[in-house]
């Protein structure tokens, strides 16, 4: 069997599986993928590899007793075996009061996330892309370390009520850290696309080289509250912690930053600056995502924060039923709308401030206020009178994305970035924030 099945092949295989079911309900999820990567450090290739992976998950239910089994073989006997195993486990399992049954067939929108340019990448193509980067970043007293990874695959699902969903996708991520040989400067770049032909490793590498050279000779500033300009790569990791918290159940239960005293939530309340608009949309041309969630619910365009007001929180099907509202799956992408300013214009309009290009090791400190800690990394600069004056030493910050988005000064143009914490891609604008809290200095370069 080939690894990446067409829609018709996936449908035929899943129909075969569902037909074997003797349970009240049955749901099957199928995945196939091919991955390849190349890694380099100290200006030469280090480790690299490839992976072929495929997998079938079968969930069977008798009433609210549910069992799950999987297999990675696909002959008729194996398909029969996996269905019988799921049924045996379902009979043994305790009742799950939160089991909601399988969904009726759904309508899905279109989303194009599969590109031949990415699917046909070979080891030679990866090596060539990296060679271009090394030609720039591995010369003239610079040391580079980078990583390029590509993936092509599909996921599909079917259930005993006739629901069928299929989504093929590809992706390529490229990241690079360039350090000066004396260890005094460091610069970073990361790019992610569905379409490999969009990736220009040479142009990306130039950015990391520029930041590495520009960050040599950093001066120490006193920790404290500063106006900052967060480049999208830096802003993404803080926004992501806010996105992870947008679950209705946690908020209703009184244990998230969206909770209020007395069992109430901040749904419908203005929590951040009115220029903040955040939505998800699987059909977004720059950031396509699967038009269905893991349980088969359709993913549609959803507004999460509009003009600073919390418009939606994610409701699982169980929690939605408890609360008498419509279920809303956790989204497959997140887009924060931007303004019109370029990063250069934002710097030009800053009297005193700090340009933060990347944040690192972000961890929650207090879930109630969503206070996060972490550090600046790979290029932090002091701005005075509209110009970058000099590089500065790295800071540790203690800041909440909610407080940060209340202290918003300016939004730039939104662009696709990859989170350096989770590898997820988002659309994020550069943003100028006042009174961002830096709590101590770090000697790290």
């Amino acid at each position, binding site marked *: 069997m080939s690894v990446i099945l067409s829609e018709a092949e996936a449908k035929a295989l899943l129909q075969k599986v569902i037909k074997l079911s003797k349970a009240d309900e049955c749901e099957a999820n199928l995945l196939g993928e091919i991955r390849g990567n190349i890694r380099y450090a100290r200006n030469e290739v280090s480790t690299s590899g490839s992976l072929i992976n495929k*997998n079938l998950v079968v969930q069977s239910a008798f009433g609210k007793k549910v069992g799950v089994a999987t297999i*990675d073989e696909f002959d008729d006997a194996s398909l029969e075996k996996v269905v019988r195993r799921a049924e045996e486990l379902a009979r043994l399992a305790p009742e799950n009061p939160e089991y909601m049954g399988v969904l009726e067939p759904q309508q899905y929108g279109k989303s194009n996330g599969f590109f031949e340019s990415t699917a046909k990448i070979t080891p030679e193509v990866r*090596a060539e892309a990296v060679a271009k980067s090394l030609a720039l970043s591995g010369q003239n007293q610079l040391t580079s370390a980078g990583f390029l990874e590509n993936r092509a695959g599909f996921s599909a699902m079917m259930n005993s009520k006739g629901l069928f969903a299929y989504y093929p996708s590809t992706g390529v991520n490229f990241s690079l850290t360039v350090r000066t040989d004396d260890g005094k400067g460091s610069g970073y770049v990361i790019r992610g696309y569905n379409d490999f032909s969009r990736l220009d490793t040479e142009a990306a590498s130039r950015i990391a080289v520029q930041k590495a050279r520009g960050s040599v000779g950093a001066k120490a500033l006193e920790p404290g509250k500063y106006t900052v300009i967060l480049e999208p790569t830096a802003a993404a990791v803080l926004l992501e912690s806010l996105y992870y918290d947008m679950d209705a159940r946690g908020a209703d239960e009184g244990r998230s930053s969206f909770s209020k005293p007395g069992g109430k939530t901040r749904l419908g309340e203005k929590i951040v600056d009115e220029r903040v608009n955040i939505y998800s949309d699987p059909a977004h041309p720059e950031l396509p995502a699967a038009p269905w969630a893991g349980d088969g619910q359709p993913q549609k365009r959803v507004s999460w924060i509009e003009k600073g007001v919390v418009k939606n929180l994610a409701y699982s099907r169980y929690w939605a039923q408890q609360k008498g509202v419509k279920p809303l799956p956790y989204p497959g992408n997140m887009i924060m709308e931007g303004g019109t300013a370029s990063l250069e214009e934002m710097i030009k309009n800053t009297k005193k401030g700090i340009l933060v290009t990347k944040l690192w090791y972000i961890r929650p400190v207090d879930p109630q206020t969503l206070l996060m800690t972490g550090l600046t990394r790979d290029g932090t600069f002091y701005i005075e009178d509209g110009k970058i004056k000099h590089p500065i030493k790295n800071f540790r910050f203690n800041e909440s994305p909610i407080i940060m988005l209340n202290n918003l000064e300016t939004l730039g143009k939104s662009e696709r970035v990859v989170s350096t914490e989770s590898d997820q891609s988002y659309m994020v604008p550069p943003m100028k924030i006042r009174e961002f809290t830096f709590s101590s200095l770090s000697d790290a370069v």
Partner: protein
Amino acid sequence: MKRRDFIQLSGLGIGGMMMIPVLGHATTPESFLDSGMDVAVKKRLADAALNAAKSKGATYTDVRIGRYLNQYVITRENKVQNIVNTESYGVGVRVIADGCWGFAAIVDAKTERDTAKAAEEAVAIAKANARLMKSPVILAPQNGYGEVSWKAPIKRNAFEVPIQEKVDLLLGVNDAAMKNGANYVNSILFMVNEQKYFASSDGSYIDQDIHRMWPIFAVTCIDPKTGKFETRQSLSAPMGMGYDYLQVNPADKVTGITTRYNMGYDMLEDVTAAAQQAKEKLTAKSVEAGKYDLVLDPSHLWLTIHESVGHPLELDRVLGYEANFAGTSFATLDKLKSGNFNYGSPQVTLFADKTREGSLGAVGWDDEGVKTKRWDLVKDGTLVNYQAIRDQVHILGEKESHGCCYADSWSSVQFQRMPNVSLAPGKAPLSVKEMIKDVKKGIYIIGDGSFSIDQQRYNFQFGGQLFYEIKDGEITGMLKDVAYQSNTQEFWNSCVQVCDEKDFRLGGSFFDGKGQPSQSSAVSHGSSTARFNGVNVINTARKI
């Protein structure tokens, strides 16, 4: 994205409690009880790959045939949310060809044709990349061990314990939490079995059976009037043990302001205390920022050791191989070569080991066929060594690998991973009580909490689970909103006392991330309670 994969599998938003990756796919529990593929078959599959790689021009090859079993039982309050059984089987082949590494992995590789195909792909990748090498890989020589095996010395295989017993335990734990004032409680049992077969062109055929176990919970208490909430997580440690870790044994209990545990964990007792303590935290005094002497329990200190000693002394980081993700290290080669780099005070000896029974790092051989051992990293305060594997030790002028190479799956390439790194106990007899008696203005911290450190491992910030104020040698009450910030060298030089070996306990990380693509590994860190003077404490309370 691994964290999301887990959340989908478990159907659980445990809300910032931890970052949990998952490897493999769901399966049925009874399939865990079959012993897997026969060793003779594994040898035949491995030989096919070794021969194929050699015929394509590889000068070195190793083959890992892996079967990875995981079982997670996930509950909240009076509900079993999910029972996740995963099994993952496949083959990974690593080669050196034209002086360059290459790696390829194939799921469900059960024929000689499959394993040979992986070997050929690995050689093709090595050859494609060789032009990007400046100098060929230098591998420390390693004698083959022939056909050998190693099994973790577990007393009760967690995979043989009926699901019902596990469900009953967790629901009992949750019930105890609710009866003692919790508003919410989540509890999970993580059980892992790695069945690993390693073969290399050096002539080793190594069959190993590794078990790990981690019982955890998080209790939440809410003040309905203010809407404030506090949590208290379990004081258990992830262990290289079977279900025997859950055997209640008075000898494994350390009594004091709260009970802590050694090689046996009383989950019911701990959750009962946790519910009461989470409630107590709601009204605890918010800490006044400033300098304090810190008394750090092993259930807390393991994480500080992990981040500020374990990671900076990984030789691949020091050399720049992790520069693009995990970072580099302040502990550069010149500091080692000077022979007098003052990593900590003379009280501080930190050692690496892959042999301690019951620890997460314990194996017979590492993932490149090197027999495991123990060695010093910091001796009486001075930096004396790193953690290094076969393609690195020549840089240290050594001829043998330290035996700390690991891959988290058949599908991942093996690389240098942290062995257990522990703080040696103090030589003079000293109890925790005696240590606290001497502290004028201090905080006693138990359990691990929030953590963050820079990419060269200088500046860090740590939270915890329980904080007790110490005034004039006495514990005076509970504190909250505590985190401490320091610099690695300054912090370890502020260590003035370490309790004796009677207090030595293991903590550890079940999911330590490193590498690209990211891999997780499990590692233990042992210590006795230790005292650090004049550390900067911040207050983390905010208003939104």
